[in-house]
C-alpha cells in the first residue's frame, strides 16, 4: 500500500522541482535587476522598484496565483496552470531575492569599495570582482532557506491544478481513502528535498567559510 501510494505521489516530484527551480531562477534574475533599480540614483526608478518589492511581498502567494490564473484571462492573457504558477512564484521570488541581495550588498563594508577605488578599479570591475562575489557568499544561506520556503509554497500550485506533490497526494487521498498516509508521504517527500537543498548549501557555505574565514 505504502509503496503504491509513494509511487503515485512521487510522480509529482518532477513538477514540484520544476516550478520551484524555474521560479527561483527567473526570480533570482529579476531580483538582480530590482536591486539595481532600488539602488538607482534616479528617484522614480528606485521608488517604483521599492513599491514593487513591498506590494509583491504583502499579497499572499495564493492570491497572486488566482489573480494570474483566473484573473488575467479576462484580459485575454490565458496561461497554462504550470505557466501561471511559474509566473506567480517568479514574481514573488524576485521581490524576496531582491531583499536578500540588498542585505548581502549592505554587509560589504565601504572599506572594500574604497580599497578598489584607491587601486583605480573601474566601477564595473569593482562591482563584478569585489562586491558581488562577497555579497553572494554572505547571501548564500539566505538564498538556500528562501529556496526551501519556495519549495513549500509551491504546494499552492495544486490549487490551480498543477500536478505536483500535493496535487497527487490529494488525489490519492480521495481515491484510496488513505488520507493520513497520503499526506504523510507528501510531507516526507518535501522533507527529503529540503534536506538535500540544505545539505548542499551547508557544504558550499562551509567550504567558502573555511577558505576565506568569517569576516
Amino acid at each position, binding site marked *: 500500500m505504502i509503496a503504491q501510494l509513494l509511487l503515485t505521489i512521487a510522480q509529482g516530484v518532477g513538477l514540484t522541482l520544476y516550478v520551484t527551480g524555474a521560479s527561483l531562477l527567473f526570480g533570482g534574475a529579476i531580483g538582480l535587476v530590482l536591486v539595481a533599480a532600488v539602488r538607482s540614483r534616479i528617484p522614480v526608478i528606485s521608488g517604483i522598484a521599492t513599491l514593487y518589492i513591498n506590494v509583491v511581498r504583502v499579497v499572499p502567494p495564493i492570491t497572486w496565483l488566482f489573480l494570474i490564473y483566473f484573473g488575467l484571462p479576462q484580459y485575454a492573457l490565458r496561461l497554462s496552470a504550470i505557466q501561471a504558477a511559474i509566473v506567480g512564484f517568479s514574481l514573488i521570488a524576485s521581490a524576496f531575492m531582491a531583499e536578500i541581495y540588498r542585505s548581502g550588498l549592505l554587509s560589504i563594508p565601504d572599506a572594500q569599495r*574604497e*580599497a578598489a577605488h*584607491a*587601486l*583605480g*578599479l573601474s566601477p564595473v570591475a569593482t562591482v563584478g570582482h569585489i562586491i558581488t562575489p*562577497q555579497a553572494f557568499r554572505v547571501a548564500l544561506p539566505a538564498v538556500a532557506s528562501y529556496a526551501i520556503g519556495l519549495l513549500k509554497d509551491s504546494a499552492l500550485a495544486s490549487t490551480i491544478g498543477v500536478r505536483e506533490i500535493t496535487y497527487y497526494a490529494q488525489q490519492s487521498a480521495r481515491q484510496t481513502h488513505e488520507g493520513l498516509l497520503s499526506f504523510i508521504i507528501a510531507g516526507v517527500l518535501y522533507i527529503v528535498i529540503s534536506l538535500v537543498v540544505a545539505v548542499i548549501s551547508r557544504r558550499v557555505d562551509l567550504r567558502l567559510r573555511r*577558505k*576565506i574565514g568569517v*569576516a
Partner: protein
Amino acid sequence: MVFSFGTRTPPTALTGEVVVSGLGKSYGASRVLSDVNLTMNEGEVVSIIGPSGAGKSTFLRCLNYLETPTEGTIEIGGARVVAGGKRPDKASLDHLRRVTGMVFQSFNLFPHLTVMENITLPQRKVLGASKEEAQEVANKLLKRVGLPDKAEQYPARLSGGQQQRIAIARALALSPKVMLFDEPTSALDPEIGLEVLAVMRDLADEGMTMIVVTHEMHFARDVSDRIMVMGNGGVLEIGPSEQVMSQPQNERTRQFLKAVLDR
C-alpha cells in the same frame, strides 16, 4: 635603532612630485580642512602628525579623491586636478589614482581572493597586464615584503602585520609614484607594527615618495624628511623632522608632542 637625520634635502622650488595648494574641504557648513599646502620632491617622505580630528585622514583621502575636496589644486606625479568647480573628468581622476597608492589602517585586502589574486587582479584590470606578467610582479613584491610563501593563502589566515605587508605589495604592484599611508600600524600590536614599519623604511630608502599619517613618533623622526603637524583642519607647522620634534615653533604643536611623548 638607526638615526638618520637630514639625509635628504628639503625642496626649495615650487615644482615637485607633489604640489598641493589651497586644499580645503567642507561638509555642508562644517569646514574640516582649510588651505592646506604641501610641496614634495621625488623621493621625499613626509609624516603627518596631529591630534584626533585634525583632518589628517581627510587630507590624505582628498589626495586620491576618496573624499572630494571642495577647493584647491592637487598635482601628483604628472596628474593635475582642480577642486571646487564641476567634478574633474574621469581621465584625470583615473590618472590621479594611477600615480598614487594607498595603504589603510584596516588593510582592506579583498577577503574572497588569495594573496596572489589580491595583487594580480588590480594589475590585470587597471594596467591590462597578462596573468603571467602580473604574477611575476606579485612574486617579486611578495619577496620584497618578506612573505614569498603566502601567495596561495587567503587574507583571513594571515596576521594583521602580514596582511598590511600584502596591502603594501598590492599597492606597489601598480607602480605608483607616491604612496599614501593612513596610520598603517595603528591596528597592530606594537611588535607586529615593527615589521610593517621595516617594510616602509626600506621603501623610503629605495626612494619612494611617501606621505604617512602616523602616531609612530620614532618613524616620523627617523624615517621622514619632514613632519607636517595638523590641527583643526589646517597645517600648524611643517619642517625638517628633527627640528619639528626638538624645537617646535607652534604652541599647539608643543602641547601635542608633550602629550604624545609623555605617554
